[in-house]
């Protein structure tokens, strides 16, 4: 510890004062968003500092958010897309990571070098050719368009390989003697043993794709296919930003799932999102 005084000293009080101030600034947009989402239009435009409305209008705003725009549809799309991406990423990356970590074969170092190079490439640079590819295959404006660029994750391969390497070779030998196939070893031995890495990667993957706007903006036009960020942007543009109450209610609903998940599983989220650092 840097402070060696443990009674409530001026330093302690100063620490809390400073942190409460920065915390208040950090939380301001969240608080303002929720506050506007429960206010009637009259109070929103009367401009007051109060968080709680004189007339509670939350029910009306949230009802309009889910009826005026297909907000629940957007969120369902988000779930479908994130779940498909994650499942495919694990299915593709785990076997490759196992081969890189535990098998010797010609081309292994080259394959690993390719993974590291792919890790360097920002996805936005690839958007134009991937858009052309999607058009040629004829899958633009479908769920497949939202999913296909992400089915292989260089970061996933890299992370799983690092974790698989820490599992003793004896475990693999024993499994072979027990008659497991190589793929059986991946699914029945490696993945259960690497569960912390899988969960951390899962959080990273779901958070990134739930939040992402760039590729969905390019890949789909149909409202029924939009994931939450794109949907809420469309809602904002339609409403021309005038109907603040329902718009803030919709924003709150889009942000809520991840915030709630984060607050209930902080440690996992910090690990998973700090994983972003490697990318």
């Amino acid at each position, binding site marked *: 510890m840097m*402070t060696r005084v443990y009674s409530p000293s001026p330093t*302690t009080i100063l*620490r*809390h004062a400073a*942190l409460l101030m*920065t*915390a208040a*600034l*950090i*939380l*301001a*947009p969240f608080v*303002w968003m929720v506050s506007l989402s429960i206010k009637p239009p009259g109070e929103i*435009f009367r401009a007051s500092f109060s968080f709680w409305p004189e007339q509670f209008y939350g029910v009306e705003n949230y009802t309009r958010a889910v009826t005026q725009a297909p907000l629940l549809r957007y969120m369902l799309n988000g779930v479908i897309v994130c779940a498909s991406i994650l499942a495919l990423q694990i299915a*593709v*990356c785990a*076997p*490759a990571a*196992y*081969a890189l*970590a*535990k*098998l*010797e*074969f010609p081309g*292994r170092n080259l*394959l*690993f070098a390719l*993974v*590291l190079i*792919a890790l360097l*490439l*920002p996805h*936005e*640079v690839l*958007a*134009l050719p*991937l858009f052309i590819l999607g058009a040629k295959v004829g899958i633009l404006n479908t769920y497949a368009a939202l999913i*296909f660029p992400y089915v*292989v994750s260089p970061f996933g*391969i890299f992370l799983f390989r690092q974790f698989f390497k820490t599992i003793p070779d004896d475990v*693999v*030998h024993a499994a072979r003697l027990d008659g497991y196939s*190589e793929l059986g070893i991946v699914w029945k031995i490696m993945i259960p043993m690497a569960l912390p890495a899988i969960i951390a990667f899962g959080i990273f993957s779901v*958070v990134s794709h739930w939040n992402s*706007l*760039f590729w969905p903006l*390019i890949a789909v036009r149909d409202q029924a296919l939009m994931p939450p*960020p794109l949907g*809420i*942007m469309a809602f*904002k543009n339609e409403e021309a930003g005038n109907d603040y109450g329902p718009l803030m209610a919709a924003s709150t609903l*889009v*942000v809520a799932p991840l*915030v709630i998940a*984060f607050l209930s599983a902080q440690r996992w989220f*910090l690990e998973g*999102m700090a994983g972003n*650092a*490697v990318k």
Partner: protein
Amino acid sequence: MSLPNRKREARGRGASPASANGRSTRLSDMIAAWTLAGPALFLLIVLFFLPVLAVFVIALTDWQFGASTLSFVGLANFEEVFADRGFRASLFNTVAYVAIVVPGTIVLGLAVALLIESGKSFRAFYRAIHFLPYMATLTAMAIAWEALLHPTIGLVNQTLAGLGLPTANWLRDESTVLPVLAAIGIWQNLGFAMVLFLAGLKSIPQDLYHAAEVDGADLWLDRLRTVTLPMLGPVFMFVFIVVALKAFETFDTVQVLTQGGPGHASEMLLFTLYRESFQYLRTGYGASVAVVFLIIVVALTLIQARVMDKRVHYQ
């Protein structure tokens, strides 16, 4: 800091000589290995390497969406891009934005991390609050920021007016729009820097603080200067690069809040890339912007890799 370590390990030798009782060179094993790694290799090629090549090819040709022919035009697209005032503004804005966001995020992230570490109570609580913006959906939060910054009914102007300070139309004024977007960028990334600094602070051996005290570094500021900051050196570089990369890749706030305006005042590289490629369908131009963007990002990442390699000697 386990993550940079992982990366470093990866740069060392390849996989350990793991494998199977000496039968590893057998053909059946090779087939098994490539059956496992094949799908990933195929997808890496189709979804990463061919697209990157394609971006370079498109940037060097006059190809347009849907055209059946193309001819090489050399660097003509790049000449057009760099002659374009809009693009130069976009590049300049992006660099200016990064130059505000990176130091702002590092200084505030470090300050919050030091404050949290300097006491024992409510650590998890403060950490959680400051990290919240990093994982909240930025598109939705941008809409909340727009309400906060609203010229008449927004909390920011109300507060300023209440204090008798001048107000502004933050997102519609050429002189304020970029700093305001940068403030949102700092708000979003600060918690991420904080988490990395917290990990770095934890890994500083307590002995060093005791030693510093014996050597007469009694004041907190002395210990900060002689122990904490030097020991955080590698973390600094790491946070610097990672936050710089994130800042270069800013898109959502520009798209939702300003569309690059007013004028070109808040136009940034990814927004230019998106608009030219997918709204104006200027394929060659868009691909050239993508190449410029790629070069910047790869250069930053290679610096990071070099620094991470140096860390081995440092420790």
